[in-house]
């Protein structure tokens, strides 16, 4: 794992690392950096589609709820409106759409990110505490196909990093 001072250095180093053929890599930064997605080759997440599905599920469950209550289970005329009076049902259906979509967004994000994860090997590096403050880190995992301790280490040292660390499992 290598430490950098600025986001710019991190992105440049990440590009070189990708060009060198490393794929099991990750970067850590104190705020989101858009350029890093392309530099590390991060694929677009399926999260937006999950959220869309969540929203549709919310809409349908809202519709099912009002339909069950007012048409199937207890049809009764209130205020001279039809049993299935759709315009009056729009507000609850709309709110459930939003609720389900928002819940899917947050839970989906946590799930896809594998959170909560109270332990992760990177936390073993004492300087890593600065990743949430001002420093930027680049990681190559030992699982990587091109990984070879000595070669990888000298490659990482050539990236212009501030400091290079070994991460213990």
């Amino acid at each position, binding site marked *: 794992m290598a430490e950098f001072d600025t986001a710019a250095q991190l992105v440049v180093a990440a590009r070189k690392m990708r060009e060198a053929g490393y794929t099991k890599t990750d970067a850590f930064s104190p705020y989101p950096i858009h350029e890093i997605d392309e530099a590390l080759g991060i694929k677009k997440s399926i999260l*937006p589609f999950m959220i869309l599905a969540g929203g549709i599920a919310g809409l349908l469950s809202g519709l099912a709820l009002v339909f069950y209550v007012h048409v199937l289970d207890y049809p009764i005329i209130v205020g001279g409106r039809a049993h299935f009076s759709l315009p*009056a049902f729009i507000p609850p259906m709309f709110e459930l759409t939003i609720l389900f979509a928002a819940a899917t*967004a947050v839970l989906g994000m946590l799930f896809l990110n594998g959170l909560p994860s109270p332990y992760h090997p990177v936390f073993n590096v004492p300087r890593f505490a600065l990743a949430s*403050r001002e420093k930027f880190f680049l990681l190559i995992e030992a699982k990587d196909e091109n990984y070879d301790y000595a070669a990888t280490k000298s490659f990482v040292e050539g990236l212009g990093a501030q400091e290079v660390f070994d991460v213990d499992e």
Partner: protein
Amino acid sequence: MIEGDHTLASVTDKIGDVTLKKRTPFHWFIGFGIAFMIAQALLFATVWLLANGIGIWGNNQPVGWAFDIINFVWWIGIGHAGTLISAILLLLNQKWRTSINRFAEAMTLFAVACAAMFPLLHTGRPWLAAYWLFPYPNTMGIWPNFRSPLIWDVFAVSTYATVSALFWYVGLIPDFATLRDRAKNKYFRFVYAALSWGWRGSARHWHRYEITYLILAGISTPLVLSVHSIVSFDFSVSQVPGWHATIFPPYFVAGAVFAGFAMVLILCIPLRRWYRMEEFITHTHLVFMAKVMLATGLIVVYGYAMEGFFGWYSASEYEVFMVKNRIWEGPYWWSYWLLIFCNGLSIQLLWFKRFRESEFWLFLISIIVSVGMWLERFVIIVTSLHRDFLPSSWAMYSPSFWDITMFTGTIGFFFTLIYLFVRFVPIISMFEVRQLLDEQQANEIHELEHKA
């Protein structure tokens, strides 16, 4: 947007240290103590209410809705500015939201908590509200009526509270991770570690995180507009003169943002002083908020004019009577003119740079606007109900001791929560401020690429 010579580290330290390192300032204890004492009034009023029933309140026929719904609408309106700042300004790419979104969202949550108490407690037996309000299958076979604006309200407000809480919490996850990494005290570190869910700032995580944040903003935008529209349906769907008007939804939403920005200013003017956050919440921020307040205030004034116009144009003798009764013939004329003074006249000062740039005047005008927005709901509700179709049932309304105690109590409760929030949670979003500083560094990347 950020003044002073700041680096990523100094920004983080300055904001994070308020929570972690600095000694809790003495005025915090004073303020918290006062707020907490006032909050006891809420406990007192609630216990008395549950023991004796809602007969202890001043509302009765014909004014069947009074303090409970006035306060509900007032509080929920205040909450709207938080969502506006965090969601709509994010979508509009307004950089100035970054320093104020965190505590504006907290304000939303606490205001919604205060608001929700009134409809719940006005049932008199809130433990039965489970099947009165929510579609919960019970052995009595009773369902709520989904055609009723009151049930729409339940769905809107509960969704709003949930989504606001999610939005706020998602924004806090990276900041809790920062506090975890910086805390020296092991108990604090444990608590912040648990709250941050093991966030480590991985690029893959940030990628999904940003999608979530943006989509939450996208869906909160129609949500916030729907919530106050639905609150206004409580009135406009009925046929009471003075309530039955199509102007209500937009006029309520503008009023909500107006009241909310006033409350944001009331909170942030002292906060930036006490915690020396002038470099993050700059004069520019205050001026922008003043402008939003002026703009939404003018929409609200347009709403008042339209209400009068609708009454006249309807050619219905009840509507015409209501307008006259509300504005000059009725016994509550003073409340209408006080409202015009607070919401219509006082904000005209904001046209002038001198007032917009003075913290004192902004603070004063914000307080006047908060009073004015409360009066607005008082005028809409009480003056419409106290003289309705049947002269034989006309009566005056006055709040009882318990009405006032409960309302005061919610104000204390609100400020208690605000004080706790300021003490334990970073009041400004650290990672977003860091991202703002990064804009310069984005240029740097391009320069490096040119060289390479």
